[in-house]
């Protein structure tokens, strides 16, 4: 009964979606307020229905109703409750349901909080949002029905893939989807603006909070996924340039660019057409990401099924929305009015530079991800494009971008004084150079790493310089500084913090990647292995049963400088339902670095193969991402973004300092 309710609710949502796709547009044509307002209620109701459908599926999982095919395929009665719930989206069908749940959530939020939007714009935005929703409802109902029943209910389920039975991966997809799908709002706004043929600074002010919110979630989702890969895949890497990872990185890069170009549009009424294009491209990349992950065209760490009907269906959605969006853009963009003027050396100029490099970096990731697929489709030749490719292409572009980050916020709008800014950054620059020298002398292995460390420090100090300059710290009396700091818009703090975070992540990546140490060995009981000043002695193997698995635990005592600092217990879990084992690495944080220990095969004589890493500063990678996210969230809480869209002229006269 419950699965049928869920199925039915989804069908109803589709019906409402079809109404919402047409009626508000007709309403906007005829200037009929009642017809346009209809979109509000349908958007809210769509969300309620999809939520109901999602709830129904969750109940099926929680109660282990194995008569439902997806529950049988992906759940097990012995699993802990938390994994019963997370396995709802731990498979293709359920994750698509989560996708539309979040899509309808964003639609409902626009309906609920967009009361200050012009009626026609809102009607168009909700209609476009509904076009996307309908496409995906159809996709689920026709090709991936999560509620399909089995004619005979099996007694026991086939268990969730053990790799996914992990708290990190439990919350990774919802966060990622909040980001991915959140960009749909920017897309809908862009299409609505093109339909209306009108766009102004206020448009950017409406779009920016949505983009920022999506970006915050996507940042966190990517960081989460990378941490999960780090501790679960057992070889200590945190980013593999795997197509599935790239699928989330590309919208992030484009979204970051969009975030910055929307600022220019909001403040200076410039870069309008580019911002619209970027909004379309960002969501297009989200769709491409969905296609890559969901259609099964990839072989990867996250590899999974090939099912052509689904692939072709998503491909059709892709072509419809990306092709349609770009065609509309080509047709209507010329009708949009030109924006303001600015000199190349100015805040706008710096943001253009940012956009140029972010989108180009995104393009290189795009090529590296899709070229192997295209090559195989055309010539049948199979290649793999891995880290070396991305280090050679993405790397230099990102380094150039990093170097310019500190200059951007210090430049003034319209026409900047590069020399003055350079002078103000002298301290940061000098410390960066000093760091390069120290790092270079301190170690002899790498030329690039000291340079990277210096660059990261330069960006961090540059972000602080911006704050110091604005508050007048060290120049003005403390009381004035406090007053200025309190009066500063939160978006300024947000910018500085987010830029600081990027550099923190970069520092972590460089240090862990360059100065990490590694040891692979076979150890017998009571034997000791040493690495980077730590001694690990092996205390033997024990069996430890879990709820739906059996763990083989290797016990190690860790000594640092002769003093016992703790124990590490890496393990291997065998899941009988799927005949699979997973590797649970043991992590021990020492300051910002980590010891990382995972085990391989055990031999008959009681010895065991181990992989031991010491990764200095590795935690900075994820701390940096959290700092970035906090910067974004702080920016989002800026009053300016919450209070509707005041007249642009009045506002820019009040706040020329930014």
């Amino acid at each position, binding site marked *: 009964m419950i699965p049928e309710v869920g199925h039915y609710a989804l069908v109803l949502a589709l019906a409402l979606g079809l109404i919402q796709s047409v009626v508000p547009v007709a309403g906007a044509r005829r200037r009929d307020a009642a017809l346009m307002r209809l979109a509000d209620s349908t958007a809210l109701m769509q969300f309620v229905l999809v939520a109901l459908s999602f709830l129904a599926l969750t109940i099926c999982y929680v109660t282990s109703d194995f008569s439902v095919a997806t529950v049988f395929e992906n759940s097990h009665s012995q699993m802990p409750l938390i994994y019963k719930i997370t396995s709802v989206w*731990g*498979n*293709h069908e359920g*994750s698509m349901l989560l996708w539309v749940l979040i899509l309808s959530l964003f639609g409902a939020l626009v309906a609920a909080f967009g009361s200050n939007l012009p009626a026609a714009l809102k009607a168009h935005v909700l209609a476009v949002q509904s076009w996307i929703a309908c496409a995906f409802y159809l996709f689920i109902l026709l090709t991936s029905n999560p509620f399909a029943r089995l004619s005979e209910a099996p007694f026991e389920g086939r268990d969730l*893939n*053990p*790799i*996914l039975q992990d708290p990190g*991966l439990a919350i990774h*997809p919802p966060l990622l989807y909040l980001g991915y799908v959140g960009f749909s709002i920017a897309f809908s706004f862009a299409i609505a603006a093109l339909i209306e043929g009108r766009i102004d600074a206020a448009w950017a002010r409406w779009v920016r909070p949505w983009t920022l919110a999506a970006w915050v979630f996507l940042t966190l989702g990517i960081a989460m996924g990378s941490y999960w890969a780090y501790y679960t895949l057992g070889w200590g890497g945190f980013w593999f340039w795997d197509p599935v990872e790239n699928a989330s990185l590309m919208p992030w890069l484009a979204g970051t660019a969009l975030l910055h170009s929307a600022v220019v549009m909001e403040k200076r009424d410039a870069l309008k057409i580019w911002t619209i294009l970027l909004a379309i491209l960002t969501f297009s990349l989200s769709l491409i990401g969905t296609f890559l*992950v969901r259609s*099964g065209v990839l*072989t990867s760490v*996250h*590899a*999974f*099924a*090939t099912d052509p009907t689904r692939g072709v269906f998503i491909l059709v959605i892709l072509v419809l929305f990306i092709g349609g969006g770009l065609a509309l853009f080509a047709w209507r963009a010329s009708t949009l009015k030109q924006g303001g*003027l*600015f*000199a*190349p050396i100015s805040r706008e100029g710096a943001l*253009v*530079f940012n956009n*140029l*490099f972010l989108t*180009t*970096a995104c*393009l*290189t990731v795009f*090529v*590296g991800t899709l*070229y*192997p697929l295209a090559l195989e489709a055309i010539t049948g*030749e*199979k*290649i*793999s*494009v*891995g880290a*070396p*490719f991305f280090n*050679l*292409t993405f790397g*230099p*572009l990102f380094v150039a971008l990093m170097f310019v980050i500190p200059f951007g916020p210090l430049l003034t709008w319209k026409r900047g004084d590069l020399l003055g800014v350079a002078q103000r950054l002298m301290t940061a620059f000098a410390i960066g150079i000093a760091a390069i020298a120290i790092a270079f002398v301190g170690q002899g292995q790498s030329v690039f790493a000291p340079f990277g460390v210096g660059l990261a420090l330069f960006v961090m100090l540059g972000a602080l310089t911006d704050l110091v300059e604005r508050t007048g710290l060290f120049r003005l009396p403390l009381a004035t500084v406090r007053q200025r700091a309190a009066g500063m818009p939160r978006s300024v703090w947000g910018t500085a913090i987010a830029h600081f975070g990027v550099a923190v992540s970069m520092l972590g990546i460089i240090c862990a990647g360059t100065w990490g140490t590694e040891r*692979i*060995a*076979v150890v017998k009981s009571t034997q000791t292995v040493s690495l980077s000043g730590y001694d690990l002695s092996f205390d033997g193997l024990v069996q430890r049963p879990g709820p739906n698995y059996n763990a083989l635990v290797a016990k190690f005592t860790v000594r640092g400088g002769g003093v016992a600092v703790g124990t590490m217990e890496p393990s*291997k879990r065998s899941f009988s339902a*799927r*005949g*699979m*084992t*997973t*590797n649970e690495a043991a992590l021990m944080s020492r300051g910002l670095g980590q010891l990382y220990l995972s085990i*391989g*095969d055990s031999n008959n004589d009681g010895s065991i*193969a181990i*992989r031991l890493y010491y990764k200095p500063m590795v935690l900075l990678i994820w701390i940096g991402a959290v700092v970035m996210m906090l910067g974004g969230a702080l920016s989002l809480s800026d009053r300016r973004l919450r209070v509707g869209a005041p007249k642009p002229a009045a506002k820019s006269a009040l706040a020329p300092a930014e």
Partner: protein
Amino acid sequence: MTRKQRRLVLIGASLGVLAVAAALVLSALRDSIVFFNSPTDVAEKHISPGTRMRIGGLVKPGSVERGDNLHVLFAVTDGKTDIRVRYNGIVPDLFREGQGVVAEGKLESDRTLAADTVLAKHDERYMPREVVDALKKSGRWQEGQTQDVRGKPQ
């Protein structure tokens, strides 16, 4: 500067960055990509020693020899041809005789592969696609097996 000049500066800069990116991509594509081969391809294609490549197939039953210090020697087969693979390190959990495997490394002059990466399949139901293709090409693929490819993490 007039609007036109400014636009020219912008377009010039964009093209410059794009050209640099294109140059980077092209040079990286020449140097850092790795081709995938089946054991039969390796035998037939006259690939010069020292080339980095990936090979895929099944671990030949009875071929696995484990030496000291985690040295492993095994043969990858597609049913027609075998290629010996040397590897030093921990093999994946699901590395077993008769199972699918993908190895990446340098081809030595004696036609063995000195692998630095060995990937095995993820779970009982999943087989790396490259392995499936290699087996299909050599005609050792039984159609009934396609269902086994339907494992789908995430």
